[in-house]
């Protein structure tokens, strides 16, 4: 049959040959800046014939003299040029402003942007490339409205990603979104190199995400790795940068002089004696003889500059029936904490698609990632805050110390040794991570371009080898780790996840009716194993001996294994319909089964509708309006990040000494979790519109997202701890807006400006009839109250400090609580006459704020002039609070150092010999040094809870393009050289290092460094 067809075609062609004169047309297709465009389709109008431009944009084609050539390329305006006997046709394609023709991945398929009824934001590889980070999601900070990215400063650590607020109670499961990398599900994507990614799509609303059912509640992020395209000569490209990371906004700590003054005003004789001990040991300062001759800036001591580099090579291309993309990349990052603290990753990947025949396509994709991470000792961040400045880093007087004579604060009398360097130097926490992601698919076209079936097998195999080493050291008798206590902990985690998808898709048009139906099933299997062992007293001198087997002592308790295996089974379907491209309807349904919970099955529907007003006749006359669509959608999502519930009480083994014999017993918990599905329901309204020749585009959305049956840890009275129950309803709602303007002034100069913003209101709607549920810790209470934000900081409001004895003596509250000048005044929340007026107690606590920002905004500016490119972006947030937990440490250990703001703005007092306050010397914002030690002033209050708003210049990049250059007679490849400053400036008021604290409690958060890089991009 095929032969017959071929003969007929040949006959037809030869007939034409005689009818028309044939020409050989050649030419070059370029973009506005005269750079050749590879891969442009050059088609002969009205026929199936055509060709594709080569890497330089050249093409050659046999056509009849009166043919019309159609030049088309994604992202560019289509052009039609009649041949009219020309033999050289060079074409300049104009970039298309009409992005609505684009296609986006939507999960188990693709859709045209203009058919969407939901809220999806896509970020392309070019935008990712601007951010010099090892973490793909970091590049999205400030770029996607409604998405909060909280950076992480530690090498190899993923940022916290929140899509539209917090729907799930924090701290229960991981609240990471679902990442779908080429079809495979992941909880984190630290293994991916950003340069391997073609696009990242954020499915923001429930309607878009619902197709992922149970996994979708925290948002879904679809990632496609780079692939080749058909009929494309191989493109070999190199991308790389090298740079350095520098700590920003380093907290100023109280110096030796301030600290000494604080100690003298502390009312604590031991503290004064520690100062005297320091003067005896280290001498007196020549500037001020009452201050020890040491002034250590601990943050300065523990910080360093870290280098960061990335190199990736990618080869992509394709022929008639196959496309390929193969790449290798290397990334290295050193942390800014001065210890072995780094991340190194080597990735290989290949992607192949092959059309075996006209009905059968097969493809495979393999990504291998090998990374090594040396984790920082995060306690160094808080220890450096607390360590007293009157102690040097190295104390040569510790003559017996080895291997390094670090200082020890207990020598001066302090309770703890304080020095952060021992834990930095003598800890070595290494994680080797080898991960392979493989997926293979076969696609069968049952009815060509109408009905197809695709089966995909995805597997991810990960092996984590963790080795935590604690090396011995000796500083003093009280600050040491003996050889027999030196430990090596070895842990192996293995993850093996499989997903098998089967999807049938049917697409058809009946007149003005366009319909796509998809049906599918999915089987998931997620298995995890762990083996852990610890050895004490190992030969620590050589790293080759850092093995449990080399140890002299292996404690029984530290040898254990763990495992879990969960199965999932799902059926899902999607219908997308439009009439005349004007009226859009959309719906998906997913039935999800899991072995994780007591309730096995969950059902997740969604519907959406859209109205493209600009397609209506009555809108056609409006010149400045190019496109206008109204959207509405509703959907339900499940959340299976909630850890599995036991559903019944469990029995654990415990160990104890009975008559010096090691024995074991069992303990049975009487409190246990029992969980149902946590369901998120969301309604979204949106507008998508383009104006002024598509130069201005705007996208606005309003959503209400309710988490029902929210899993909430209920504090168990009496015993502490908590059990989880589906008890709550949490609402997130917000408005999102993204505006983009881009224009080309002339062929040399073009620019673009973008702005996006989002609001967020997080509210606890119901707690099973209870008024509130407590969270946080007993000392730093966070309370979820109906009508307020989840886990809001909850405590007393301060109202200045008592500035004189008169004021103290005239206030019955102060008298009742034995207060002195320099202590805080708290607001009495009851009015005169109300019960509880005149006393400060638990009833005077109020909500002090939420750790979630209520407003986030971002923007960018791009400028292109000839071969120069300039881009800048900014990001900011307001409305969130941070608990300065470092300051709160005073509750447990009062003699530590404090930040300079606290020292400078303290209330200064004079004390008599019995350490009673005589008078106030200077009234300050904060209590006196003595006051800071009193429980009264340590109440959870707005003193600890600070404003977390910040504004940041996110990224500034200057680049120069070298195109079509010839050096010494040789054609040079296209090159791009760039200078990038990532996060060069952050402005905030918070008294800490870092306003980015994911859960709002800043105890030992790794600071976010600025990164300065030089980059090179070469295309052969």
């Amino acid at each position, binding site marked *: 049959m095929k032969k017959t067809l071929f003969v007929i075609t040949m006959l037809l062609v030869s007939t034409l040959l005689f009818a028309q004169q044939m020409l050989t047309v050649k030419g070059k297709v370029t973009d506005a800046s005269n750079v050749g465009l590879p891969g442009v389709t050059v088609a002969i109008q009205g026929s199936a014939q055509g060709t594709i431009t080569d890497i330089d944009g050249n093409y050659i084609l046999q056509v009849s003299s009166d043919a019309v050539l159609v030049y088309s390329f994604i992202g560019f305006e289509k052009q039609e040029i009649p041949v009219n006997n020309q033999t050289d046709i060079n074409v300049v394609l104009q970039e298309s402003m009409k992005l609505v023709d684009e296609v986006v991945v939507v999960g188990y398929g693709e859709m045209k942007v203009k058919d969407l009824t939901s809220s999806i934001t896509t970020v392309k590889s070019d935008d990712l490339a601007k951010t010099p980070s090892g973490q793909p999601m970091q590049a999205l900070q400030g770029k996607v409205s409604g998405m909060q990215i909280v950076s992480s400063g530690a090498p190899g650590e993923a940022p916290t990603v929140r899509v539209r607020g917090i729907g799930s109670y924090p701290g229960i499961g991981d609240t990471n979104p679902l990442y779908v990398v080429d079809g495979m599900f992941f909880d984190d994507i630290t293994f991916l190199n950003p340069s391997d990614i073609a696009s990242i799509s954020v499915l923001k609303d429930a309607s878009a995400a619902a197709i992922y059912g149970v996994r979708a509640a925290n948002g879904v992020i679809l990632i496609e790795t780079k692939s080749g395209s058909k009929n494309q000569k191989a493109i070999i490209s190199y991308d790389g940068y090298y740079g350095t990371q520098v700590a920003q906004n380093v907290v100023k700590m109280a110096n030796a002089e301030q600290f000494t003054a604080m100690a003298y005003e502390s009312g*604590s*004789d*031991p503290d004064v004696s520690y100062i005297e001990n320091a003067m005896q040991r280290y001498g007196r300062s020549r500037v001020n003889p009452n201050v020890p001759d040491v002034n250590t800036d601990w943050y300065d001591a523990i910080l360093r500059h870290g280098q960061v580099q990335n190199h990736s090579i990618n080869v992509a291309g394709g022929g008639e029936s196959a496309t390929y993309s193969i790449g290798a990349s290397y990334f290295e990052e050193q942390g800014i904490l001065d210890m072995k603290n780094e991340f190194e990753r080597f990735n290989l990947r290949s992607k192949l698609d092959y059309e075996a025949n006209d*009905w059968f396509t097969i493809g495979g994709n393999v990504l291998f990632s090998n990374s090594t991470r040396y984790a920082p000792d995060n306690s160094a961040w808080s220890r450096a805050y607390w360590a007293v400045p009157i102690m040097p880093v190295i104390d040569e007087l510790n003559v017996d110390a080895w291997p390094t004579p670090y200082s020890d604060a207990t020598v001066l009398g302090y*309770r703890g040794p304080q020095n952060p360097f021992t834990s930095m130097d003598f800890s070595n926490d290494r994680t080797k991570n080898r991960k392979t992601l493989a997926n293979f698919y076969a696609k069968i076209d049952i009815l060509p371009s109408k009905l197809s*079936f695709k*089966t995909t097998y995805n597997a991810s195999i990960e092996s984590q080898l963790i080795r935590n080493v604690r090396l011995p050291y000796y500083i*003093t*008798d*009280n600050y040491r780790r*003996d050889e*027999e206590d030196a430990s090596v902990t070895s842990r192996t985690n293995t993850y093996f996840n499989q997903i098998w998808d*089967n999807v*049938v898709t049917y697409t058809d048009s009946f007149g003005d009716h366009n319909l796509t139906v998809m049906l599918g*099933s999915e*089987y998931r*299997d997620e298995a995890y194993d762990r083996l852990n062992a610890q050895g*004490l007293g190992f030969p620590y001198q050589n790293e080759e001996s850092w093995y449990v087997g080399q140890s002299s*002592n292996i*404690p029984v*308790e530290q040898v254990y294994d763990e*495992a879990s295996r*969960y*199965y999932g*089974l799902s059926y899902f379907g999607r219908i997308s319909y439009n009439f005349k491209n004007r009226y859009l309807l959309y719906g998906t349904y997913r039935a999800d*089964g*899991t*072995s994780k919970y007591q309730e096995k099955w969950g059902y997740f529907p969604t519907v959406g509708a859209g109205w493209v007003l600009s397609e209506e006749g009555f809108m056609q006359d409006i010149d400045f309006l190019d496109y206008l669509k109204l959207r509405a959608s509703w959907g339900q999502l499940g959340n299976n990040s909630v850890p*599995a519930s*036991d559903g019944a009480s*469990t*029995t*654990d083994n*415990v*160990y*104890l*000494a*009975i*008559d*010096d014999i*090691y024995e*074991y*017993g*069992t*303990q*049975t918990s*009487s*409190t246990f979790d029992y969980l149902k599905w946590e369901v998120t329901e969301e309604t979204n309204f949106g507008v998508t519109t383009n104006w002024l020749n598509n130069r201005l585009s705007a996208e606005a959305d309003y959503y209400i997202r309710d988490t029902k049956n929210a899993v909430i840890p209920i*504090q168990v*009275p*009496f*015993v502490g701890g908590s059990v989880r129950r589906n008890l709550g309803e949490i609402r997130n709602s917000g408005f999102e807006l993204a505006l983009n303007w881009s224009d080309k002034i002339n062929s040399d100069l073009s620019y673009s400006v973008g702005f996006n913003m989002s609001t967020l209101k997080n509210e606890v709607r119901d707690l099973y009839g209870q008024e509130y549920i*407590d969270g946080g810790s*007993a000392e730093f209470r966070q309370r979820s109250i109906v009508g307020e934000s989840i886990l809001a900081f909850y405590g007393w409001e301060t109202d200045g400090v008592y500035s004189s004895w008169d004021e103290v003596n005239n206030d019955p509250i102060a008298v009742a609580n034995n207060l002195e000048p320099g202590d805080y005044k708290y607001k009495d929340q009851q009015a005169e006459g109300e019960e509880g007026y005149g006393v400060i107690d*638990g009833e005077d606590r109020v909500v002090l704020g939420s750790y979630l920002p209520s407003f986030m905004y971002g923007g960018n500016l791009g400028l292109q002039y000839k071969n120069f490119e300039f881009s800048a972006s900014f990001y900011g947030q307001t409305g969130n609070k941070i608990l300065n937990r470092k300051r709160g440490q005073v509750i447990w250990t*009062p003699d530590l150092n404090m930040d300079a703001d606290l020292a400078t703005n303290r209330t200064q007092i004079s004390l008599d010999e019995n350490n009673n306050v005589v008078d106030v010397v200077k009234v300050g914002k904060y209590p006196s040094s003595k006051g800071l*030690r*009193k*429980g*009264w002033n340590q109440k959870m209050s707005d003193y600890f809870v600070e404003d977390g708003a910040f504004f940041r210049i996110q990224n500034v990049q200057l680049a120069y393009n070298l195109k079509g250059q010839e050096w010494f007679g040789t054609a040079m490849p296209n090159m791009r050289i760039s200078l990038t400053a990532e996060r060069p400036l952050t402005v905030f008021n918070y008294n800490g290092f870092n306003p980015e604290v994911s859960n709002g409690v800043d105890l030992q958060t790794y600071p976010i460094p600025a990164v300065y890089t030089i980059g090179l991009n070469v295309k052969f």
Partner: protein
Amino acid sequence: MTMKTIYKFIIVANVIFALVMVSSCSDKLDELPLNTSFTEDVDYTISENMILPLKGAYEAVYTRGWEEFPLISVRGDDVNHGGLGDQQDYAETDKYNYNKDFWMYNSLWQVSYNDIFMCHSAMEQIEKYQEFASNPALGDQYIAEAKVLRAFLLFQVTRVWGDVFIPTNSVPTDLVGVMPTTKDEMMQHLSDQMDEAIPYLLDIHPNKRSDIRGGVTKYTALAIQALANLELKNYQGVADATSEIINSGEFKLSGDFYNLFKIPGKLDDENIFEYQYSDFGQASGDRTSYLFAFFGPQGAFYNPKVEGAGGGWGFYEPSIKWIKFMLDRGETTRLQTSVLFTPRGIAEIQKDAAYATLPEWISNVTPSGDEVLDYPRAMFSSGKHYLPSDQLIPGRNDYGSNNNFRCIRYAEVLLMHAEALTRGASSSVMTADEAVNEVRGRAGLTDLSGVTSEQVMDEKFAELAMEWGTRFYDMVRLGNYAELSYEGRTFTEDKIYLPYPQNQVDQLPVLKDYQR
């Protein structure tokens, strides 16, 4: 055409096969979580495992936070907070200024109740084994032991807060909405519980047990019963319980008071109840321990005989009032055992002209040869919580490592007996004089005759200082607030109980307006 039909058929068959394959996996959803021992999976027919929940209860009771004992015991005139400049609200508690937000209050409450519920859980588990056990009576004994452990914790909680809650099972939430029990009702409840337990308990000294050496026996229950009845001022009840202990002949005072609190005194004949810990005879590795460092002299100012032995945090300072009281009595053994002196502390005593000349033995070097230098946070350390460096297992340097924590001693039983008799109770087993003199004799003091209540209280002060706040609770019981008003403090009746922790008030609304 036929070829096309065939391949379409193959495709459709494949599609159906794929979908069916997926469906056939649905039974996987019923798989149970891996690596979990579900309580319902426990095989209760294995009778030899019936002891495991009981050992679990012992583990729960032995595992204590460092903040609990200090908070229970700091308020008496025998001991001060020490740790100057640190844990301000702990110091304030010692001075009877209470802060319901202070973390130690909440922690003591939670940790104690957690273990009280764990004792209930153990009883419930043992009952399940009993159904199948060939020897259910053994289960009765185990349950009785768990009852006694529970009672000891509940006794301490009640002394601190007065009116607290009586758990009746292992489910904490069952107590929500229940009103607290008054202190007297609770003490009666504990006494009744001991009556219930005693018939099932072993009638031997704890250190003679072969299964759980040092565990609970009949005499532990009797001692707790005596303590509870003392709080109730039911002195005949005290006399009856103590008489039974004394009459058994199982217990005797240790001849070496100094070492009674140290390694040689672990599971001594004098000890009725103690928390057990061990280094298991090894230089490193597995270890269970109490955090004795809290009591130790500050490390940088501690010069141990055995080099490398660590010091402590400098809290819990014997009061000068008590030291002078002991000097006045001419005590050596008990004073030397109970106090570690610093040069500064010695000088401080001598500032009082009446004590300018001190006995020669008073020194900042302990009888074991460890030297205590001046340290900023306190002038004295508790000797009863001190372990000489030469008693540490080489390789273990933590202060007090490998030592047990004494809870109830026979000496206290004797003195309770004596007090009860002087307050009108009767006993045919031993007279008040005999009981007091037995204790005095061990301390190297001469006999008394016709002892008064006053003298017994003095003897208790001398013998039991730094132990479990016995002195404070005695003075509270007797309304002798004058003794508690010392060194600048003023004690009044409203200071008897700590306020309920704010965290508990938030979770248990009945506490909000509860009046004790």
